[in-house]
């Protein structure tokens, strides 16, 4: 009986160590992301929020960083290295984890540009050949499948990404964003980024 008790105690201790180690391991991978992407993965400029992002989108982007086909300056500087050792399965697990976190709006856009931004997003500007973003990104900018959530991302990230479509980056991305973004003026990009930063 005494022996059994000792075995049980040892087993419990081993289990605790094992679970602590495995939990620690998961935390490390996530921790490596949240050092830059912020607590709760809710973004810390220049790193965008990942919380609530579409898992298929995150998984694909990690693959693009890994293959070095997503190639803007911050991607080269940070994400190529960060994604170097992330294989397909790790990317999927990280993507699912971040998708499960509740998104929090950055709320850091220019408030008086929100109206124009909302109009462009929800209705487009047919006379200027600007399409309505809502058709692909959804009524609350929540995204779908590999089309990313835009709602609540920070202003500077949204603005930078909209500008970069026509600066020769994003070799991995196919149509239609390069063509769409080419029709947006600087003011319209700022309006969109402002509106989206407040979308919950």
């Amino acid at each position, binding site marked *: 009986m005494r022996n059994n008790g000792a075995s049980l105690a040892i087993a419990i201790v081993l289990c605790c160590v094992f679970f602590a180690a495995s939990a620690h391991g998961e935390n490390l991978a996530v921790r490596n992301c949240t050092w830059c992407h912020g607590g709760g993965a809710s973004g810390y400029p220049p790193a965008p929020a990942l919380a609530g992002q579409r898992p298929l989108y995150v998984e694909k982007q990690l693959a693009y960083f890994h293959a070095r086909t997503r190639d803007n300056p911050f991607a080269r500087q940070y994400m190529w290295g960060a994604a170097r050792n992330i294989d397909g399965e790790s990317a999927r697990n990280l993507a699912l984890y971040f998708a499960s976190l509740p998104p929090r709006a950055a709320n850091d856009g220019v408030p008086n540009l929100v109206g124009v931004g909302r109009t462009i997003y929800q209705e487009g500007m047919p006379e200027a050949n600007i399409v309505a973003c809502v058709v692909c990104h959804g009524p609350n900018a929540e995204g779908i499948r590999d089309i990313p959530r835009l709602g609540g991302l920070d202003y500077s990230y949204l603005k930078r990404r909209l500008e970069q479509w026509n600066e020769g980056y994003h070799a991995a991305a196919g149509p239609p964003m390069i*063509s769409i973004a080419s029709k947006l003026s600087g003011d319209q990009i700022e309006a969109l980024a402002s509106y989206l930063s407040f979308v919950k």
Partner: protein
Amino acid sequence: MRALKPLRIEGTPEARLRPAIWKLTDVRLRVGLAALVATLFFVGAVSAQHRIGPSGDIAAKISYCKDCHGVSAQGYNGYFPIPRLAGQQPVYLQNQLRAFIEHRRTNNIMFNVAHSLSPAMVDALATHFASLHPPPIGGAPRQKVATGRKIFEDGMPEVNIAACAACHGPDATGSGQIPRLAGQLYPYLIKTLNNWDKERGRNPTVPDASAIMSPVAHSLNRSQIEAVAAFVSTLR
């Protein structure tokens, strides 16, 4: 204005016998020719400018349409399914763009789009999209295709549903106001058939051909709609 002296024709007697062989040494002739060339150039430039104006607009508008409907107008699965326009019947496209404006067909986005198009632009766009033939984008479940083919080709006489092919054509390419279905997006076809009366024939003061489809859409159950959609979405 001083009358010009007759042109002096130089050269051999043989040359003189041939009319219209003038030497360009004559100053008046040179000036005249220069003026003619300049005039032609000016007229050409002006008319080219007139051509570039509208055709530039058309190119920009086509690019705008394709930003949503796909680079070859093959359709695109966004948050909402965006239909294929490639190979579509021009009369159908023209009628649908009018339907958005006349509130026969409800869609806020397309209402705004249709309002921005002149009749000439609508015609140009309809002609352009009818001329495109990219392959279907696919994505429909294959196991439904055989059932769909049967409904499409034979109809369902027991529930009084005619063969789709009777109106939409054996290759589902449509005709006139009856749309091409071949290669249309699977989720778009499902959404459209499931919501027929919520999306089409919405203005009672302007009845249209969409009324023909209403009883058909109602008679098909969900799985039959999926089957027909799967079949026609694979057609080239």
